[in-house]
């Protein structure tokens, strides 16, 4: 998989240059290349006319390239001053620490970003926006020439956002070049000088911010024909199976979700990374029990506080990160297949090995799982086949509702097509499917209806016939108006 195919991009001193693009367009990878966290396969990076060779995180720092990520990378148990000093005091391991200078430097840098933070405070006690300001102060201390801000306002309130934009404007005035990544398009028109749109790992356009509307940006971000063909079949929909009404879970930042899924239907859930899609699935499945709202399966109200109850109620959840949450890598394929139905396998007290073998072999055939046999450990399989094993485990529970979280992320094209075929087969047999996906093409290609999440809330539900990439992205970004 290539995250970046071909990106051309220039940044001037005293400029704020915005980068926009869908999930997976290559923004993060571009930053990693610039900061030396990963190496580019081809192409050059020039700084003040000089080619950067042998880039590494240390090297890019010494050149004055600094990045502030969406999730602040602070050390929570060190003080603010220590956090700032860590990168800025070039290290002789045996050198004595000059605490006074360290505190004063930190104080000045914090003042420069307009933050009133005591530098001797433990960094872990700061709020998220404060931590972000510390990160920016840290970047400034390194005599930054290129400052990269990756969605700096994603977790900030309006007031904090205003302040941050002020700081960005001030830094620009001081001659720094700033790369600003954001999904909040309205911000960009205010702060950015130019905007470059990335799509599928390529830079597709660079525009002057003043002359570009949000609408134009969105169509540039989407702007493609459907890249692949999806095997979507039309299925006669049955009665509603899963009904969810105003589901709320504060601890998971799920504000509100209302939807229903009918038998044979595939409901796609779209939204930006962090919009609460996975949290919705985890709340439904009892991993983070809901605070309020109602859920019913086949007309029966259910109250789910843990995964066991969810399974009892006929829900199945194939989680996003299959290595961490899906398969149990050390166990053989057959054991993975039966893990969720251990107590229902064969007769009740003994683990019925014969029944397990039959069941596992059956699923291996039905889903076309490529494995050295049902006794091979699950982590010896390819990513796509591991995913099929994870799906098999949940299908073995004979669920009424199947929730798939990024079912085809990071698996190859062939396996992806097969996963899609399997989903269609299941829908045809009357299963209600909820599919969370960051890939717009997949959502559009596979779903009967598409629900869009933004900031923990389900903001729109769109029928397949009406769904367009622009419409979905508009809702996801918050430019869709009332739906």
């Amino acid at each position, binding site marked *: 998989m290539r995250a970046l195919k071909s990106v051309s991009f220039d940044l001037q001193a005293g400029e704020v240059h915005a980068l926009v693009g869908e999930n997976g367009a290559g923004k993060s990878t571009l930053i990693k290349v610039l900061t030396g966290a990963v190496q580019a396969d081809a192409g050059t990076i020039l700084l003040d006319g000089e080619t950067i060779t042998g880039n590494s995180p240390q090297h890019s720092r010494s050149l004055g390239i600094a990045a502030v990520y969406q999730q602040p990378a602070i050390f929570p148990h060190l003080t603010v001053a220590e956090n700032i000093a860590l990168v800025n005091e070039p290290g002789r391991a045996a050198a004595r620490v000059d605490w006074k200078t360290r505190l004063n430097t930190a104080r000045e840098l914090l003042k420069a970003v307009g933050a009133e933070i005591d530098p001797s405070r433990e960094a872990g006690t700061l709020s998220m926006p404060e931590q972000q300001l510390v990160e920016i102060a840290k970047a400034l201390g390194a005599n930054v020439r290129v400052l990269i801000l990756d969605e700096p306002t994603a977790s900030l309130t309006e007031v904090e956002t205003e302040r941050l934009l002020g700081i960005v404007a001030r830094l620009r005035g001081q001659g720094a070049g700033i790369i600003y990544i954001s999904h909040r398009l309205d911000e960009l028109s205010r702060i950015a000088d130019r905007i470059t749109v990335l799509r599928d790992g390529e830079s597709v356009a660079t525009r002057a911010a003043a002359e570009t509307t949000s609408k134009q940006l969105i169509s540039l971000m989407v702007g493609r024909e459907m890249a692949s063909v999806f095997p979507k079949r039309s299925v006669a929909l049955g009665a509603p199976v899963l009904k969810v009404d105003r589901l709320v879970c504060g601890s998971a930042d799920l504000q509100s979700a209302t939807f229903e899924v009918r038998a044979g239907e595939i409901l796609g859930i779209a939204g930006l990374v962090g919009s609460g899609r996975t949290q919705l699935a985890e709340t439904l499945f009892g991993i983070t029990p809901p605070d309020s709202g109602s859920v019913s399966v086949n007309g029966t109200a259910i109250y789910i506080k843990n995964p*066991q109850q969810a399974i009892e109620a006929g829900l199945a959840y194939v989680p996003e990160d299959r290595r961490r*949450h899906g398969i149990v890598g050390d166990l053989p394929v057959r054991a993975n297949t039966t893990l969720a139905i*251990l107590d229902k396998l064969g007769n009740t007290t*003994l*683990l019925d090995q014969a029944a397990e073998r039959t069941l596992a072999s059956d699923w291996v055939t039905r889903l076309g799982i490529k494995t050295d046999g049902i006794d091979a450990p699950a982590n010896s399989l390819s990513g796509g086949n591991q995913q099929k094993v994870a799906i098999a485990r949940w299908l073995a529970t004979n669920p009424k509702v199947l929730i798939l979280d990024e079912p085809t992320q990071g698996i190859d094209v062939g396996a992806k097509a097969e996963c899609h075929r399997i989903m269609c087969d299941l829908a045809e047999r009357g299963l209600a499917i909820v599919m969370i996906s960051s890939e717009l093409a997949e959502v559009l290609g596979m779903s009967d209806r598409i629900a869009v999440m933004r900031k923990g809330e389900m903001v729109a539900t769109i029928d397949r016939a009406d769904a367009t990439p622009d419409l979905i992205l508009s809702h996801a970004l918050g430019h869709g108006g009332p739906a």
Partner: protein
Amino acid sequence: MKQRATAIAIFWALLLTTMALRAPSFFEFGNLRDIAVTNASALIVATGMTLVIIAGEIDVSVGSQFAVASVIAGTLVKAGLPLPLTALITLFAGACFGALNGFLVTTLGVPSIVATLAAMAFWRELLRWITQGAWVQGLPASFQWMGLSQAHGELAILAASAALFGAFAWAMRHLHCGRAVYAVGSNRESARLAGLPVPLITFSVFTLMGALTAVAAVLDSVRFSQVQSSAGAGLELKAISAVVIGGTAITGGTGGLWGTLLGASVLAVIAPALTFLGINAFWEKAIQGGIILGAIVLERVSKRGGRRAR
């Protein structure tokens, strides 16, 4: 795991061959029986330890638990309780010690190495304080060898150990809960999402560990006419070594009891073998350490080779 077990089996075979050539009297029935009887209790503790380690945990308090259980058994018998009742009470006490560890780990979320390290010190020091280091002496004759002749008593010890080991080896393969222990140790989060009661499984494993340790303590005590308050010193290391040598991953999720049987067997013969070969017994621990290290290094090397080939 297979590689490690194979390497150990080869080492064991070599050792036994050496013994056959250099000191054939090692294989006399009486000697082998003595080795087996002496190590029966360690095998039982290692059985429990295998479950604990497969579940992704560790219990370093078994040596102290063993000592407390031994003293409890000795005291009860001396007070005139019949052996079956004594065994039952000791078993219950052991299960409670284990359950306490399980409670600390699952309910309070204390990492098992910390919780059981604390338990190890606590039980050992508590025992020292109560007994003042004194042995429980003058146990009734009805206790020794369970009131049987020595030959029959030894047979009973071996039979009981073998039965327990067999039962657990079978259960790990053929019961749901056995599978669940593997799943929890391999990937706790996946296990939880699959609807397994992860805390209950962890708790049960610790409780079983305590109960098995108590059984081992009773079976060991009947061999002597007194109970030492320092009983079980170093037992945790022996048990963990047997498990690791047997190919169970210290990180959990893989391995099994047959490997542990192999590991325990290797550890059991080293010391007597040295004696028979006329080598200073001080070498025992060094050789043990060398075997553990060698087995793991060998496994690493072959694994890396395997990865590259793939």
